[in-house]
């Protein structure tokens, strides 16, 4: 048992830190540290930079052009990126669909799709949830009928994150109604430029366009875009869920946001306020405990062992902590967390010229503008990716059968 990293791990961390410091554009880091709006181009810029270095698929094995890092190295990479203020990598390509293609795709599919993912050129979306199938994913209804060498897809997906930017989408579709719901599901890769694909925005409660409905109306999908066997899609889905479990806690970002919370508390004159400061202290304990729990899982995974009973807790706790720090930031902003100024979420907004280019309460409160938007937006974290209620069901299952 020991806490400190090995010399190799420390050297690795230093290498990553240096590279990120030299390659992460300052304007992107500023937006991330300020929780301002990120455009498709912002996200793509960072993806291409990582892609050029061969680090966009940071979880990939060497054989597929990845760095072949172990769990601890992946964690250190993620932490360095998070603390430096790098934009969140849109996970649907490199983190989600790629491992499925590696595990279940044909060599042809791997040659065809992985390079575009690794380079950051191709934007992928995830077509899982449906209006009637949220927690109960297996009940999904989007149909894919095999007609000759193609599938005809009809149905609707929803909560499709950033699909408005998507080039391709991987979908769970129903190819059979026999047996129990999980059987009869297939894993399809669909070109979003195909005729019959319609993307409709869903605005979230903070007024942002982040999720969508994706409609499929007699969309023709070549059969060679089926991954794995027909009706074996559930196996792919489970593989995807099993992959990358530690970063789900998002503790690295939590550490960065705790630092930001402290800056905001100082700016708002709350740092010396015992009552508020204690709230930060409690959160600090929560975050340290979560980080230790993550490190325990990493240590087990590096040792080639699963510690599922703990890993299952990471999403629950991580999302609770995300909501807590956004809540405390909003409370720290106080009255100046109230204004909703859509355009002020853009970097460089200078306030209203009529008032001499100032903000509600003055430029001293400019950092308050995004606080409530983030708080509102983050209510999603305990709902998506398997609601925390479903997560608790799973944890209880391991304890009680």
């Amino acid at each position, binding site marked *: 048992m020991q806490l400190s990293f090995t010399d190799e791990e420390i050297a690795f961390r230093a290498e990553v830190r240096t590279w990120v410091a030299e390659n992460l554009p300052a304007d992107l880091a500023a937006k991330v540290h300020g929780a301002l709006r990120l455009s498709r181009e912002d996200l793509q810029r960072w993806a291409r930079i990582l892609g050029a270095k061969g680090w966009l698929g940071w979880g990939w094995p060497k054989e597929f052009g990845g760095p072949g890092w172990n769990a601890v190295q992946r964690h250190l990479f993620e932490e360095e990126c998070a603390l430096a203020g790098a934009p969140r990598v849109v996970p649907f390509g490199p983190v989600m669909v790629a491992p499925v293609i590696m595990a279940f795709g044909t060599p042809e599919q791997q040659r065809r799709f992985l390079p575009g993912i690794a380079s950051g050129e191709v934007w992928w979306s995830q077509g899982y949830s449906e209006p009637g199938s949220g927690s109960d994913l297996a009940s999904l209804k989007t149909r894919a009928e095999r007609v000759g060498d193609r599938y005809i897809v009809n149905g609707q997906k*929803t909560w499709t994150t950033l699909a408005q930017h998507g080039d391709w989408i991987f979908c769970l579709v129903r190819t059979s109604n026999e047996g129990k719901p999980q059987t009869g599901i297939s894993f399809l890769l669909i070109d979003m430029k195909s005729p019959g694909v319609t993307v409709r925005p869903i605005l979230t409660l903070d007024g942002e366009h982040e999720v969508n409905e994706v409609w499929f109306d007699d969309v023709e999908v070549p059969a060679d875009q089926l991954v794995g066997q027909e009706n074996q899609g559930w196996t792919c889905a489970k593989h995807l869920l099993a992959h990358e479990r530690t970063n789900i806690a998002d503790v690295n970002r939590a550490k960065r946001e705790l630092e930001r919370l402290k800056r905001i508390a100082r700016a708002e004159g709350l740092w010396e306020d015992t009552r508020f400061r204690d709230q930060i202290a409690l959160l600090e304990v929560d975050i340290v405990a979560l980080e230790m729990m993550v490190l325990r899982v990493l240590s087990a995974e590096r040792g080639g062992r699963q510690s599922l009973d703990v890993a299952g807790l990471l999403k629950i706790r991580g999302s609770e902590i995300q909501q807590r720090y956004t809540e405390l930031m909003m409370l720290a902003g106080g009255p*100046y967390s109230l204004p909703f*100024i859509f355009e002020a979420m853009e970097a460089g907004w200078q306030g209203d010229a009529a008032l001499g280019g100032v903000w509600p*309460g003055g430029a001293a409160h400019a950092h308050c503008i995004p606080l409530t938007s983030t708080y509102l937006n983050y209510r999603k974290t305990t709902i998506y990716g398997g609601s925390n209620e479903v997560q608790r069901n799973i944890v209880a299952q391991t304890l009680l059968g």
Partner: protein
Amino acid sequence: MDFDFSDEQAQLREAVRRWAERAHGFERHRAIVRDEGGDSAAVWAELAGLGLTALAVPEAHGGLGFGPVEAMVVMEELGRGRVGAPYAAAALVAPVLLSGAPEALQAAWLPRIAAGDARVVLAHQESGARYRLDRVETTLAAADGGGRLSGRKSLVPVGDRAEAVIVSARDETGRLALALVQRDAPGVTTRGHLLHDGTRAAEVTFRDAPAYRLSAAGTDALPALEHAADVAIAALCAEAVGLMDFIVALTADYLKTRRQFGVPIASFQALRHRLADCKMALELARSMSYLATLRLADAPELRRRAFAQAKVQLGQSMRFVGQQCVQMHGGIGVTDDYVGAHAFKRLTCMELQWGDTLHHLGQVSAQMQDTAGVFG
């Protein structure tokens, strides 16, 4: 000790509720936010048509002279109906502030307020004040016929559309004073914006703006300001209770309708118990809303203690009910075109108005006596 409403109060509630249901649906609310910047002249005219703008104005000035309980009844229904109009600010707080003003000012403004022709709102928030009413840097310089205001206020309800603003300021003696300034007066600049709950506020700056002093020279206006704040808090509590009534019922309906795993999710005990906890939070909040309203006329010490307790309870209830009702809805609960999400946003903003939970907890903590209870 009686918590029944009179027939008149029941009728008043019924009238406001019927209007909100009939005339102020969610689509209209969204249109007001989208197309009218969160403040609709038509809605204000309809409230006036219902006589509501006259509710708190003394009969001597053309009002109805109703009391806190009637105000609570109206606010509960405006909350249930998700009416974002600045009713508390312009129809309940303003008359209280003006009640201490020189007769001429009262005669000039109260009838117009009662008729719905003028909206007068309080401007108290300053950049460094956080939730403290006595942190005021805006100055009121004496001048013939009144004074001249210089300074800057934030988050003034419909501050760019109201006819006049009542401003807290320091006079030359350093005393806190209240002064009324017309929005179209020289030296007044306003910049309106939305709040996250879809209501409208404005940043207002004053440069030697001509003003009429409300509070007598040589007196400290803080007690009057605190009383006005408590009128606003009582209104906020009542609105929150109506709004929580709405969102808890909305959530119950959703749980009964939404099916997963082949059954209505209302059959899951974890959700059933959480809805029971929401009901608990709601009823505790309603209880403290009653207490606040019924303490409004009491001596400042007793009143302020009860109001701090009430805002702590409301703050906890609003946060818990809002968050949990969204959670129980799942994805639909976080979409902008769902009425529940707007109720949640309003509940969220109300915690940040007139002192958040930690602020008022500090007040309760500082004012604790050896004994405690509803009766002090």
